[in-house]
């Protein structure tokens, strides 16, 4: 049971990450490979505030969201000028920089040692220290992320995003400042990823930079491409499959020491197969 709850919580965290990345990649058509950076900023901000400043988890989460949104604003000012392949490449670069900051700013992040002893959340006498209540908390966060994403997708703002995806030049002719729209959706997406990061930090109770590499960004990308771009249910479905698939392999008899590499091989291979045979994913409404 404990094992199933653990997987369910990881699934919920990745579903939030998938939903938020889908806003940028699926709805706006910008291939961002920097999502793990914002996930990491949220996780680190929350972890540092909870451990060394004894801040309540929910306040720390909010601070993480703000920090990540601010970082996304600064990065987005540069990034939003690009489109297509160059967007993918420059965002990859930002993830590399974010990772090296987490690794090298040792005074703040303790570098490769990571931050241990992050406490579980509590609110108004309600403690989420065991995994059951934490699952409920994560579920509430996923529901919030889903509602926010659905609202954005259905709003006039969301329609402009889709128009940018289909033909950025044409929508500019109608007087829309596309750079501003791209920036806005990027910041919203980063803020949501940061909330997932704070949840992750307090769930695992230990974080180090290795959870926030470019490869993690590729993993989140694989989730939404598998589930289907520009479809919110697809992101949730993709997260479920991508979290459960490596576990299935473990039961098939592969040794646990190779778990991380095996997971990488699986999602790398699934990206190749998807591009070859079904680039729109399972439920996708848009293909790259």
């Amino acid at each position, binding site marked *: 049971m404990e094992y199933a709850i653990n997987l369910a919580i990881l699934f919920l965290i990745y579903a939030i990450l998938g939903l938020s990345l889908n806003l940028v990649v699926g709805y706006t058509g910008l291939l961002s490979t920097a999502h793990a950076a914002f996930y990491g900023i949220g996780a680190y901000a929350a972890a540092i505030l909870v451990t060394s400043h004894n801040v309540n988890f929910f306040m720390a989460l909010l601070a993480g969201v703000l920090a990540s949104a601010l970082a996304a604003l600064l990065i987005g000012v540069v990034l939003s000028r690009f489109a297509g392949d160059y967007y993918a490449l420059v965002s990859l670069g930002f993830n590399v920089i974010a990772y090296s900051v987490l690794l090298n700013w040792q005074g703040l992040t303790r570098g490769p040692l990571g931050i241990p002893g992050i406490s579980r959340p509590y609110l108004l006498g309600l403690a989420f220290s065991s995994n059951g209540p934490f699952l409920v908390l994560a579920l509430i966060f996923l529901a919030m992320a889903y509602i926010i994403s659905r609202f954005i997708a259905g709003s006039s703002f969301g329609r402009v995003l889709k128009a940018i995806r289909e033909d950025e030049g044409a929508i500019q002719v109608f007087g829309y400042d596309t750079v501003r729209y791209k920036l806005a959706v990027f910041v919203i997406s980063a803020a949501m990823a940061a909330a997932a990061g704070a949840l992750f930090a307090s769930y695992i109770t230990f974080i180090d930079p290795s959870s926030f590499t470019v490869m993690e960004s590729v993993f989140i990308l694989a989730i939404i491409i598998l589930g289907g771009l520009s479809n919110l249910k697809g992101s949730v479905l993709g997260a479920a499959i991508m979290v459960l698939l490596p576990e299935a392999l473990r039961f098939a008899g592969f040794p646990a020491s190779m778990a991380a590499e095996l997971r990488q091989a699986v999602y*790398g291979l699934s990206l190749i197969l998807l591009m070859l045979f079904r680039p729109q994913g399972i439920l996708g409404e848009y293909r790259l």
Partner: protein
Amino acid sequence: MEILSQLIVNSVIAGAMYALMALGFNLIYSVTRFFNLAHGVAAAAGGYAVFYLTSSLGQNVYIATAAGIVSAGFLGYGFDRLVFLRLRRRKTSSMVQLVASLGLLTSVQAVLAILFTNEFQTFPAGHTLYNVLGGAITGTQTAVVASGFFITLLLALILRHTMFGKAVNAVSDDAEVARIVGIDTDRVTGRVFFMGSAIAGIAGILTGFDTGLGPTMGMGLLLKGVIACIIGGMGNVWGGTAGSMLLGFAENFGIWKIPGQWKDAISFVILIAFLLLRPEGMIKK
């Protein structure tokens, strides 16, 4: 004075290494028009092939190096035949090919980690120090500089003076027209993948001799090569090498004043500056 000459020597070594990555990447980009991120893992695979042949099979270093270069080439060729060729025939966008190459990078890198573990592997290489203009350089690093120089020259000559080179130029100018005048574009592209990946293999092997091998080394090499290409000018042999040298000098002179771990950050700042101010690179095609 001594610091200055050492910095210059280090910059040239780094620049030559980046050039080896940039040349192949640029060559492949010029005919396929997408960012082939799997290029990085071709370099790593070349290095590991040499490691396997020398330490497990006890082969001679020179034979192993030649075999490593060829196997990196065949890996790249295989990527093209199995994945990219099919995507090209379906006329998919460059983003789809980029994502597929990201998948190849991730999965082959994971396979390397499963086969050879995540531990850092080193070659039993001699570390004789030579003195050039007051700066120290090892034998391996001399090989890096020499390979960077000769392969740039060789590639430029091939592209300019052979039938194959003319075909490559034709495909990179306009693949559709090239096909109409009777060039077998798929065959040319396959050979370009072989050549480009073999050159990346040289970079991976030399990195193995110089500092050692890790399964994720391809990513770092790749990023430097890509940045060098963009700041030098995409789709241009000289551009890739010029960008590599600029990058090597900027990084090594940068860490004179800034701590060394910010090398990667320095190179990305240069990339962004170029993208914003001079997106066509140093040498325009």
